[in-house]
C-alpha cells in the first residue's frame, strides 16, 4: 500500500465537518459510488468522534492523526491518537439488542455503524503507546 496523505487535526468537534469534506473529495477520485462514499465518510467520522469522546474524553486539544493508504484492492484508514486506551474487547462488546429493546439507550451506536461500514476493523496500541484504529474497505473494481 502507498501512503496517499496524512491528516493531523485537533480533537475539536468543530473540525469534523472539514475532515468529512476532505475525505468525501478524496473518495470521489477513487470511483466509489455516491452511496458508498456517504457510508465511508460516516464510518470514518464515527471513528474520529470516538477519539474525541472516549480517548480524549471531550478534551479539544488532543492530536488525531489520520493516515490514508491506498492499495490495488484495498483502501486503508489508520487513525492514531494519544488518548485513553479503550477496553481490550471494545470492538466486540457492542450489541444492538439493548437499543432495540423497549427502553432504548443511546450508547454504542457509533461502533455499530463503524463495524457495518468497513470490511475490516482492527485496533492495536502501537510501539509509541498510541491508540491505533485500522479501517479497511475494498476499492471499486
Amino acid at each position: 500500500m502507498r501512503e496517499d496523505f496524512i491528516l493531523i487535526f485537533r480533537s475539536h468537534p468543530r473540525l469534523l465537518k472539514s475532515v468529512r469534506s476532505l475525505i468525501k473529495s478524496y473518495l470521489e477520485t477513487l470511483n466509489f459510488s455516491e452511496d458508498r462514499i456517504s457510508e465511508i465518510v460516516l464510518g470514518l467520522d464515527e471513528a474520529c468522534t470516538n477519539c474525541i469522546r472516549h480517548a480524549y474524553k471531550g478534551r479539544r486539544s488532543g492530536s488525531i492523526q489520520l493516515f490514508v493508504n491506498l492499495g490495488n484492492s484495498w483502501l486503508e484508514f489508520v487513525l492514531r491518537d494519544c488518548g485513553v486506551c479503550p477496553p481490550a474487547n471494545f470492538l466486540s462488546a457492542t450489541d444492538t439488542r439493548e437499543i432495540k429493546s423497549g427502553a432504548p439507550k443511546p450508547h454504542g451506536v457509533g461502533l455499530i455503524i463503524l463495524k457495518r461500514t468497513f470490511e475490516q476493523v482492527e485496533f492495536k496500541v502501537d510501539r509509541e503507546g498510541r491508540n491505533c484504529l485500522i479501517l479497511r474497505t475494498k476499492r471499486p473494481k
Partner: protein
Amino acid sequence: MSIEIKINNDEQVCKIEVIGQVDLYTSPELRKAILSGMDKVNKKMLVELSNVEYMDSSGVATLVEGLRSAMKHKKEFYLVSPSPAVRKVLNLARLESVFTILESDS
C-alpha cells in the same frame, strides 16, 4: 454552526425543524431544542428531518434520548420526512424500527 433549528410549538404539538449537518459539534443544539420542547408540550413532538444533509451517531443518540424522554412522560415522538442521510444512519445503526416515521406532518 452548520445547523439551524426552527421551533414551532403550541400546548399540544411541538414541531422542530432541523436544517444542516448534525454531528458531535452540533447535536447539543438539537438535544437542547428537543428536551426543551418536550418540557413545554403536552402531547406530541415532531422532529422534521427532510433538510438534514448529514447525521452521525451523536445525532441518532439525541433522537433516541428524545424518544426515551417522550416514553417516560407518556408523550408521542415522531420523525418526519427523514432525508436520505438520516435514513442511511438509522439503517446502519439498525434503529429505523425503533422510531415512528411519518412521511409528512399533516
